[in-house]
């Protein structure tokens, strides 16, 4: 077993950057913060590639199966001989894959931000927060202990909160960051209870041991957790579903998805990093990390499947109606994560049946690249036109050729057109769904078509359609179309690199490296099977082109045709309003206010009583301390006299 200890540096470098930039950034590194952050992350990225090369190609494999390697384990809090909170580094196929995803996307975002955030007053703070996020995400990936996962999970939540609220003088950004934090915190409550249930029955918090104990049907832990039941479901189901609730909160699955669209108030590169490529897939990663346990429990997996599929469909429908380009992308993210979730849900553990697991991880991998590309492209567009609204855009293809090309590639990738990356991973997911559950397959197919439709609606509205933006640009005194241009080379370079990835990563023989049991999985693209989804996607693109390529009334007719349904989708199916109703009309007056009353009157009242009694007694007796020496002498002699009487006459 060779040494993987250097992997520890991958998260520690961003942490060091965070500390340095966070403490001294604004004073000493106001200009150079971006370079420092990028350089440190570049080192991390290179280290991750070295680790991936070493693991996948040199010594990760024993007898054809990729091993789980615990590179480091440090017992941090020992509760009992078996239960402890450890800090450690796990090296296995999915963690190494995630290292690559997180460090490379983060690096691209760092580079892009050099141009995008230039001239911001809190430039150094921004990079400090980015580093904090990268550190937390990497720590989350490398966790060996489920409590370690939980701690980094919360750190990720905090850094997401800080970054969404980066423009803290904008009330909507403040509201969005609070919303994101509160919704995910609520989900994390479920996560914590789930951890405690699993830890209680498993007798350990170590992920490897938990998997070992809960995957053999004869082990005493497995028998005890499956026989104990609560409200008709076994404790295993409860534990896993509650853990999934945490994952659903971070991954914006219905009904905990409401924070994600609002999170778009953050700077666009942040959306690319956190709310598209890395943090939101933490939920998928969590389920994948515990997948052997999930695969023992049919009910929990069914919930994962249907929540995933429903979220995918719902988000795709809403995405068709939104006009803010970042919100469209946010819903598309939610939809794609739904794909990953149900792919996990329909999977089994090990062998050929583990196709869904591998497909989910593959989609996570490809999605990270093309979705961050879409967001960075959108960032580039917003940088140019200073607006998020589609109506302010149009005809931008002449002004921003590189962004245009990159965006088109990303759209084709997400639409699943061969040979772009999304095609391969989506095919695997559809195949897995087809073999397991025809209903899910149907939903997935329909969602895929919707995805193509709304992505190209976005594409045509930004880059084709009317020439509004071009005219506005010229009429505003910008005679030379390239005066502002597409931004600096630091903004174009990540777009080009990510575009190359969006084309290329699909050709990686992913199933050779990552599968549910570590052994390579043989997959092949079945041409006959691919006909249906690809044809549907192309039809959807053509429909979208006929609606939006040039300005015409067809789309308005479609809106009129759907009528109420369109309005409901535009209002995001009133889920936000439902939450507001529940919190404002039910939770606050019926639960919050009585508890507040009890806190003010009973809890505080008891404390006030204690304090007041003490104060009264001390006022009454303070005269004893007169400051006169002779009084004290008198007390002293009185005391001696009393003691003498006591000893001489009473205790003879």
């Amino acid at each position: 077993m060779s040494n993987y200890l250097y992997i520890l540096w991958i998260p520690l470098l961003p942490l060091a950057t965070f500390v340095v930039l966070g403490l001294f950034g604004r004073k000493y590194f106001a200009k150079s913060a971006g370079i420092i952050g990028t350089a440190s992350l570049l080192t991390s990225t290179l280290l991750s590639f070295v680790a991936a090369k070493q693991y996948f190609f040199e010594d990760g494999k024993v007898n054809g199966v990729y091993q789980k390697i615990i590179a480091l384990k440090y017992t941090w809090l020992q509760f009992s001989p078996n239960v402890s909170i450890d800090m450690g580094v796990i090296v296995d196929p999915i963690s190494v894959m995630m290292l690559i995803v997180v460090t490379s996307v983060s690096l691209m975002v760092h580079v892009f931000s050099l141009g995008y955030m230039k001239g911001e007053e809190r430039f150094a703070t921004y990079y400090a927060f980015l580093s904090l996020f990268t550190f937390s995400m990497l720590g989350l990936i490398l966790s060996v202990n489920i409590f370690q996962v939980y701690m980094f999970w919360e750190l990720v939540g905090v850094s997401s909160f800080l970054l969404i609220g980066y423009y803290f003088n904008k009330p909507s950004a403040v509201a969005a960051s609070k919303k994101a934090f509160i919704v995910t915190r609520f989900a994390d409550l479920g996560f914590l209870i789930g951890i405690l249930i699993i830890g209680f029955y498993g007798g350990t918090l170590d992920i490897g041991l938990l998997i070992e104990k809960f995957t053999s049907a004869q082990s005493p832990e497995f028998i005890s957790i499956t026989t104990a039941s609560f409200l008709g479901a076994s404790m295993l189901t409860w534990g896993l579903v509650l853990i999934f609730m945490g994952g659903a909160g971070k991954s914006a699955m219905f009904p905990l998805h409401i924070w994600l669209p609002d999170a778009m108030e953050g700077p666009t590169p942040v959306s690319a990093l956190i709310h598209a490529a890395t943090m939101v897939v933490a939920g998928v990663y969590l389920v994948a990390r515990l997948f052997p346990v999930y695969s023992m429990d049919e009910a929990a997996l069914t919930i994962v499947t249907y929540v995933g599929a429903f979220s995918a469909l719902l988000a795709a429908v809403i995405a068709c109606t939104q006009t803010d380009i970042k919100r469209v992308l946010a819903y598309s993210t939610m939809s794609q994560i739904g794909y990953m979730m149900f792919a996990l849900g329909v999977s089994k553990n090990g062998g050929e049946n583990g196709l869904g697991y591998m497909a989910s991880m593959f989609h996570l991998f490809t999605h990270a690249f093309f979705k961050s590309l879409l967001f960075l492209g959108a960032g580039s567009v917003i940088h140019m036109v200073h607006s998020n609204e589609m109506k302010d855009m149009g005809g931008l293809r002449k002004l921003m050729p590189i962004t245009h090309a990159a965006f088109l590639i990303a759209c084709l990738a997400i639409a699943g057109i061969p040979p772009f990356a999304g095609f391969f991973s989506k095919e695997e997911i559809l195949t897995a769904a087809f073999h397991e559950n025809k209903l899910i397959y149907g939903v997935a197919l329909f969602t895929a078509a919707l995805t193509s439709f709304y992505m190209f609606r976005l594409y045509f509205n930004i880059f084709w359609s009317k020439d509004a933006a071009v005219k506005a640009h010229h009429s505003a005194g910008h005679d030379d179309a390239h005066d502002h241009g597409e931004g600096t080379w630091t903004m174009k370079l990540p777009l080009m690199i990510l575009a190359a990835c969006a084309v290329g990563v699909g050709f990686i023989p992913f199933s050779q490296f990552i599968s549910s049991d570590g052994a390579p999985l043989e997959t092949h693209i079945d041409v006959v099977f691919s006909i249906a989804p690809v044809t549907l996607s192309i039809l959807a693109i053509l429909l979208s082109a006929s609606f939006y390529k040039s300005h015409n009334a067809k789309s308005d007719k479609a809106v009129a045709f759907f009528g109420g349904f369109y309005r409901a989708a535009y209002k995001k199916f009133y889920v936000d309003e439902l939450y507001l109703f529940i919190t404002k009309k039910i939770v606050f007056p019926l639960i919050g206010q009585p508890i507040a009353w009890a806190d003010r009157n009973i809890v505080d009242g008891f404390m006030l009583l204690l304090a007041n009694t003490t104060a009264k007694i001390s006022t009454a007796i303070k005269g004893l301390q007169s400051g006169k020496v002779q009084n004290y002498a008198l007390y002293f002699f009185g005391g001696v006299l009393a003691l003498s009487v006591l000893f001489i006459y009473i205790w003879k």
Partner: protein
Amino acid sequence: MNEIPLTHILFVSTALFFIGMYGLFTRRNIITMLMSIELMLNSVNINFVAFNKYLFPDKLDGLFFSLFIITIAAAEAAVAIAIIINLYRSHQSIDVDDATEMKF
């Protein structure tokens, strides 16, 4: 010549002790209070010597005790007078009723 009984001596020392106590409580001048304390200490010395002489004539423990008390009384007087000088410098008075800052 008749020997003086022990009770007489104890009577003297008790009288001395309560005179000292009376002085301690009634006088406001610190130096007088210090003198009263010396009176009380000396009444204790008389007790020690008397008990030693009448009850254990072949031993010297009581005498040594009174010697120690005399030594300590000397040291105590030195310290007390130093304190009194400092008190006088800060308050321009050695009246205890003028030094009552250390109250509630």
